[in-house]
């Protein structure tokens, strides 16, 4: 299956799943497209991946950890681009349930065929990584939709423990005044989405 067809299969499945799960009272979190930034907008995630892979900012490899993965959208895009294994770590049990059900549908439909693992836990702590069967220090790419406090802790751990070349991708809306606090990691690339509503900063150790 062509990558593009796979990506649109993912988008469609998430759309169906969202409606189904929300009717059962299981939340997906905010998804407004009225100008506010949220972590799960395809029109932001997909252009970033296209740009990053095309320009060799990231290479299809792994392991990848989506730290604070919510309903897991980025993990499926990582999978479509050939990254593996991809680990989702999320605190909220409700969001984990939504992610598991949607990703399960994608796997059974043959749209996602890689190794996506979803665990409930705190991405700043080793227990979550152990549950996923991946050592913190083996992770090549960390992906994070910005939440300042835990991000700072995660970045400090990367700075101290991860090998050279480990990358941290932070998704948010940034400017000169507000930018992620990543405890001394080096900003290597900046990407602003075509609608100018979201930024992806790629840091390296």
């Amino acid at each position, binding site marked *: 299956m062509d990558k*593009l067809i796979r990506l649109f299969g993912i988008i469609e499945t998430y759309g169906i799943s969202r409606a189904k799960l929300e009717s059962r009272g299981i939340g997906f979190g905010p998804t407004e497209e009225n100008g506010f930034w949220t972590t799960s907008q395809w029109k932001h995630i997909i252009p970033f991946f*296209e740009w990053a892979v095309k320009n060799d900012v990231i290479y299809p490899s792994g392991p990848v950890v989506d730290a604070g993965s919510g309903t897991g959208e980025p993990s499926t895009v990582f999978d479509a681009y050939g990254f593996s294994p991809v680990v989702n770590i999320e605190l909220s049990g409700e969001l984990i349930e939504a992610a598991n059900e949607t990703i399960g549908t994608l796997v059974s439909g043959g749209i996602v065929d890689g190794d996506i693992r979803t665990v409930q836990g705190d991405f700043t702590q080793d227990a979550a990584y152990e549950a996923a069967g991946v050592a913190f220090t083996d992770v090549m790419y960390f992906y994070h939709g910005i939440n300042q406090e835990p991000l700072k802790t995660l970045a400090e751990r990367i700075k101290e423990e991860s090998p050279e070349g480990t990358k941290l991708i932070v998704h948010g809306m940034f400017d000169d005044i507000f930018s992620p606090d990543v405890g001394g990691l080096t900003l290597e690339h900046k990407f602003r989405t075509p609608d100018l509503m979201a930024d992806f900063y790629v840091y390296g150790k």
Partner: protein
Amino acid sequence: MHKMPDMPYVPNDSMNIMGLYFPQSSATPRILSQMRKAIFAGQKADISASEVLESQKEIAEMRKTIDGVTPEFSQHLNNTVLGDGNKVDSLRTIFLTYADYLGPDREVIRGDVVIPRDLGTHPWSMYRGEQGYDSVDTKITAEESQQYVRENGGALRDMGIENVFIKTSSFFYVRDEDLRKQGFINSVNSEDVLDLDTLVTYLADSHGFVGLQEMQKPTEEEYMRRAMPFNASRQKQTVEQKVGRKIRQYRSFRNDGDVISDWGANRIVPLTEDNAIYWGTQFRGNTTVCKFATEVLHVDDYYTNPKPNGFKNYNTTMLITSPRHKSTIRELQVRDLLQHFNSEINEKSPYYHGKFRERQGESSKKRQRLMEEFEYDDILKLMFDARELEFPVTPKK
């Protein structure tokens, strides 16, 4: 001696295939141009997913623009043509949907069946809100088809039909006065009864089957005796299929007449050739249709220069503007009843529409195979949000 490498022919288009709807710099023309070059060069070009996302947005917006104009423009055009400039009393809207009847293994039990619905003389309130569909046009198609399947579930089931797969639809506007005069509306127990199934065979190609029954197509003599002038309108629901056919065509796109202009279209079918020439001439220059101003971009006048097979028609591409709507492109087709009969209904005619679809050369087939192999057909469906409408026939209780 070095042999020169084979250079594939890639058409040098001066206009983009969707150039009447989207500027050259926007995502849709960019993607279509990439696809066209790739299938002529025989080498797949990867289409960017973010461009497809952008294109989906553009196309959805354009569809809404066309959709928003259709009811009012059609109403005013009907008044102009069928009401001699005044509001027509009792202008009836007949809605025709083409569908395939599918059996238990999804085999086509009966293809291209026309399902008629009489929307009455005041259908315009149905045109409010698309309610989750991509257009009001699709909403009406879905609702009317579902209603038909519900009403005729038993009979459909008896024919072994398990699903009804919807293909296209269009609106036809006819005067009640003409329907009475021509015997399609008859008074039964002092109530007007419309013979809808027979009427359909005079409006469009029934393929010999209307709704639930075999229906003979009229002969030319019968047709010319009973047919009445009408107008029609539709939003092309299969525009992505036409785009797919066009991008693999050999001839390059040089002007407004070569590219797609009938996403939203109206048709005027008057009684005689003289009437057709009159209306064709009326819309040949810039004019107004009530509050709509029309600016003519291109005219194909096949009345002055008929096609080699004899077909006569006016195809006018117009930019229409009004204070209440976004400007948009519409195609206006004008042809007299006999031309309509021979192009749409009469299978023996040299220009019966069904004949053209069958012809396809080897090189065209090769390019079609490449479209499939490169998965461009699927990408076009994604861009145009070509969702399939299919309704199950409920089993008997």
